[in-house]
C-alpha cells in the first residue's frame, strides 16, 4: 500500500516537472522580439493602447521602426492623451513617416483645442497636406481669426457637407449677438423693453408693469400730499428702474454667451459626427 502511494507521488512529481519544463520553454518564446510585437499588436487591436505602447516600447528598445513609433503616438491620441501624442508625433517629423506624423500632430493639436500650430507662425503653417489644410480651415470656425473666403474654404470639404459648413461659416461671421448698450438704453426709455429686446418677453412685460405701478403709486402719493410715502415709493421706483436697466444689459450678455456656447456645441457635434472629415474610424 505504501509503495502504491510512493508511485503516485513520483508520478505527480514527474508530471509537475514535465509541465514546468514545457511551460518554461513557452515563456522563453513569449519574450522573443517577434512575440512581443505580436502581443503588442494584439493589445492594440483590443484597444488596450496603454499596454500596447509599453510592449511597442519594449520592442523599440532593441529595434528601430518609425511605423511602430507612429503607432505609439496614435495610441496616445486614441486615449485622448494629446500632449504625449503631440510630442511623439513631433519626434517623427524628420523620419520616413513624416507626412503621417504631421497629420497626426495636426489632429492631436486640433482635438486638444490648441489651434496655435495652425496659425501663420505655427509649426503647421507650411504644410500643404490636404487633410492638414482641412483642419486648418476648421480652426477658423473656432478661433477669433478673420475668416478666409467662403469658396476657398468650402472646396476642401465633400459636397454633401458643404451646406452645413456654409451655415457654420455664416453663424461665425454673423452671430446673432445683441447690443448690451442698446438694451440698457431701451430699458431706460421704456422700462422692460430692453428685456424684450434680449428675448425675455415675460420678464420685460413684468418689469414694465412693476416699474409703472411703482411710478403711479409715487405720483399718487405726492398728489395726495403724502410726501413721506411719496419719497419712499420714489426711492423704490428708482431702484427697480435702475435694476431693470442693469438686468436688461445682463440679459443680453447671457443671450450672447448662449449664442457662442450653442455655436461651439453644434460645431463640436457636427465635426464629431463627421469624424472631422478625416475618414476612417
Amino acid at each position, binding site marked *: 500500500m505504501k509503495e502504491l502511494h510512493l508511485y503516485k507521488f513520483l508520478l505527480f512529481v514527474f508530471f509537475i516537472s514535465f509541465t514546468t519544463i514545457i511551460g518554461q520553454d513557452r515563456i522563453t518564446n513569449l519574450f522573443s522580439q517577434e512575440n512581443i510585437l505580436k502581443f503588442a499588436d494584439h493589445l492594440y487591436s483590443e484597444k*488596450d493602447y*496603454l499596454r500596447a505602447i509599453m510592449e511597442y516600447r519594449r520592442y523599440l528598445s532593441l529595434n528601430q521602426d518609425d511605423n511602430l513609433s507612429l503607432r505609439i503616438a496614435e495610441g496616445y491620441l486614441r*486615449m485622448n492623451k494629446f500632449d504625449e501624442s503631440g510630442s511623439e508625433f513631433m519626434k517623427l517629423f524628420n523620419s520616413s513617416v513624416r507626412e503621417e506624423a504631421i497629420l497626426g500632430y495636426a489632429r492631436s493639436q486640433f482635438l486638444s483645442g490648441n489651434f496655435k500650430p495652425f496659425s501663420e507662425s505655427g509649426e503647421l503653417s507650411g504644410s500643404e497636406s490636404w487633410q492638414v489644410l482641412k483642419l486648418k480651415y476648421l480652426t477658423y470656425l473656432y478661433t477669433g481669426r478673420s475668416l478666409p473666403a467662403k469658396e476657398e474654404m468650402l472646396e476642401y470639404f465633400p459636397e454633401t457637407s458643404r451646406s452645413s459648413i456654409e451655415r457654420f461659416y455664416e453663424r461665425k461671421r454673423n452671430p446673432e449677438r445683441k447690443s448690451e448698450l442698446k438694451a440698457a438704453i431701451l430699458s431706460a426709455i421704456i422700462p422692460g423693453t430692453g428685456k424684450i429686446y434680449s428675448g*425675455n*418677453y*415675460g*420678464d420685460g*412685460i*413684468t*418689469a414694465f408693469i*412693476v416699474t409703472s405701478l411703482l411710478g403711479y403709486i409715487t405720483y399718487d402719493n405726492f398728489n395726495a400730499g403724502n410726501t413721506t410715502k411719496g419719497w419712499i415709493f420714489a426711492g423704490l421706483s428708482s*431702484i*427697480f428702474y*435702475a*435694476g*431693470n436697466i*442693469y*438686468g436688461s*444689459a*445682463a440679459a443680453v*450678455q*447671457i443671450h*450672447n*454667451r*448662449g449664442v457662442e*456656447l*450653442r455655436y461651439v*456645441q*453644434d460645431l463640436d457635434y457636427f465635426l464629431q459626427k463627421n469624424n472631422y472629415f478625416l475618414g476612417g474610424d
Partner: protein
Amino acid sequence: MLLLRVLLLCSMSIVINAQTDWEYWSASKPSYTQQATENPAHENESEGITDRLASGAKSVYSFFISDLDGDNCPFHPTCSEFFVQSARQTNILKSVLMFTDRFTRDMNLGKSKGQYLLTTEGRFLDPVENYLMDYSSIHHIPLQNE
C-alpha cells in the same frame, strides 16, 4: 477540495486588488495631512460692512417676505441668498441692482424651462455669476435649441 478553496481565495484577492485599466499601475501615495477648514466662528470677525448690510437686509427680507411666503422661491439660489452672494462678490450698490432685477424676474408668472436650467429639486438655476457682467463667468444657461 482544499486546493479549490485556495485557488478561489487567490482569485478573490486578485479581484479585490485589481487596479484601473487606463493608467500605469503604481503604488499610491496617500496623504495623511488634514485639510484646513474654515471655522465659521471666525467668519463673522472678518465680515466687511457690505456683508453686514447684506445680512441685515436678508433678515429684513426674511421677516417681511420669506417667513410669510414660505419656502416658495422657484429659484436656486433663493432671492435672499442671491442678494447676500451678490453683495459678497460685488458691492452693495451693484447687489441691490442685481437683486431688484432678480425680484422682478421672480414676479414673472411666465418663467420657463427654456430660460433657465433646472436643478434636481426642480428649481430654476439662476446663479449670481450670470449677472456679474463678466462674460467669461456665464456658464449655466440652457443650450438646447428650441
